[in-house]
């Protein structure tokens, strides 16, 4: 493919998605380098979630290239295949496996064989237990390990979902509104956690909360009507008159 994609982790070029005549993405281009953390903001309907859907294989773009690691064409793969490549996704609404315990949620998310033949006979190994313990610690859920995850608080569910992402050991994490509905202290802790994760993995965060985006201190991409309106540091984009217009103008 294009040599432009060399050395990139995620490369979106000229991606368009149309639903019944509505352009959810309009010639969107976005490049993420390995190890980068990027915040994506934008008003409702700007195409943030659709962009996630395109990257994770839920939605096929009508046109455009979506490349992972510079060469793998994500538009040809389905959700499990893309997850297998090392792209993990956290949803806007926390979606954990509610009837399962916190422990079992992490066990199911652990990187490894996903086939029925393996899981039929799989026994929990010491290695797996060690990994789960460490994720429980990172996400401060150690005391909740045997609780039914549906009974967790909203913030704890968000953290469990981030824990499940970590368990998959992805190269790239897509995180959709991680602090929606969180208290201020939970929001702060989440920013710390994401920065910690970013030391070893690339992260794309979609968020509305400007305070949180500022706390992350990373490059920001502003989406509007399905394409990139502005890109740069948080100070740069928040002074951009076009961004001000979109957020406050109407």
């Amino acid at each position, binding site marked *: 493919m294009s040599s432009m994609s060399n050395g990139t982790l995620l490369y979106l070029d000229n991606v368009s998605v149309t639903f019944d005549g509505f352009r959810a993405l309009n010639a969107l281009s976005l490049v993420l380098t390995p190890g980068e953390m990027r915040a994506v903001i934008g008003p409702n309907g700007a195409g943030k979630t659709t962009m996630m859907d395109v990257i994770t294989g839920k939605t096929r773009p009508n046109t455009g290239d979506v490349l992972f690691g510079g060469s793998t064409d994500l538009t040809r793969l389905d*959700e499990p295949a893309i*997850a297998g490549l090392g792209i993990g996704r956290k949803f806007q609404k926390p*979606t954990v496996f509610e*009837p399962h315990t916190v422990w079992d949620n992490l066990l*199911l998310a652990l990187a490894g064989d*996903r086939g029925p033949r393996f899981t039929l006979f*799989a026994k929990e190994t010491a290695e797996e237990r060690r990994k789960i313990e460490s994720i429980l610690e990172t996400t401060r859920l150690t005391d909740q390990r045997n609780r039914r995850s549906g009974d967790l608080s909203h913030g704890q569910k968000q953290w469990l979902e981030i824990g499940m992402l970590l368990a998959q050991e992805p190269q790239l994490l897509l995180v959709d509104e991680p602090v929606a509905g969180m208290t201020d202290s939970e929001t702060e802790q989440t920013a710390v956690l994401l920065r910690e994760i970013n030391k070893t993995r690339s992260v794309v965060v979609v968020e509305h909360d400007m305070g949180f985006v500022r706390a992350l201190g990373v490059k920001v991409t502003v989406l509007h009507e399905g394409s990139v309106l502005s890109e740069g540091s948080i100070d740069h984009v928040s002074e951009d008159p076009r961004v001000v217009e979109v957020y406050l103008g109407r």
Partner: protein
Amino acid sequence: MKASALTVFLVMGISVLMVVLNLGTAASSPVHVSTFMVSLAGKYLSYAILALSVDLVWGFVGILTLGHAAFFALGGYAMGMYLMRQIGARGVYANPILPDFMVFLNYKELPWFWYGFNWFGFAMLMAVVVPAILAAVFGYLAFRSRVTGVYLSIITQALTYALLLAFFRNDMGFGGNNGLTDFKELLGFSLSAETTRCGLLVVTAIALSLLYLLARAVTRSRFGKVMIAVRDAESRTRFIGYRPEQYKLVVWVLSAVMAAIGGALYVPQVGIINPGEFAPANSIEAVIWVAVGGRGTLAGPILGAVLVNFGKTILTGALPEVWLFALGALFIVVTLFLPRGLLGLMPVREKGDPPLPADPPTPAESAAKEAVS
């Protein structure tokens, strides 16, 4: 005693007790169990195997099947074909090769698909292989296309209805409307002998117990945890790399094979198999047994199948026209007041048992959800 051990103990214990009271006491004794009752119990346990197979797909991967009697009936037909071939020249028309209905319908020779069914081993292999292949093809197409929910239920219903119509046809080669009957013996044992009937009950009880333990092991494994995840949040499983269609297919085929084993055990105990077994209502009844006993509990559907069919035997004997109304009322009552079934009333959960399906939302909760979205 653990609930699973108790289940096997009750299934085996009651069956063996009935056999002892049948063979060991005189017909005049007050504790004598008639051979009719022994075969009736065998029939209920065959149905219990069908209920177990329905629970495996409905209770654990969320496929509400309304066509599982199709697999049950196919297993039954394979057994019926073997039993027909065993009649040999003792039929009304005394044809050593052709079953009576073929002579009557002017068949000149045995159709190719009847070859081999004079061997018990081959017939039993076909009893599970044919339903397994049908389930695999059906499941592959349905699950790959991500057909779910009520649409999937409707095509399972269509599947069994199509087979019903096909098996009614005389040229299909399975006895048409009348099906297969007048069986004489199974592996050399006369089917009218009470020892054979007792043996069949015990074999059915053993098969049910083994299949129950198999289903229990599968649902408690890591595979079982994925099944629950697929049941409650199918699309989420895809984003962490599982392929729900693979899991559904494995469970669907396993379940079809179980149902077929139930059907094969059913036929020698009731003495007939005809296209009526494919009737959509049969599959729906099986779903009711599961709901009554407790969806997602494995032991519950066994209890539900036995109790509902016991009730059916009594009611259709006393007030035949009331039965369908009673069944409908039962389904409504269970859905409204007993969403977890009879086993939901008992503290029988074991550590490591997979989580139960969520109770359906109350009307107030549904309304609240509507209001929010």
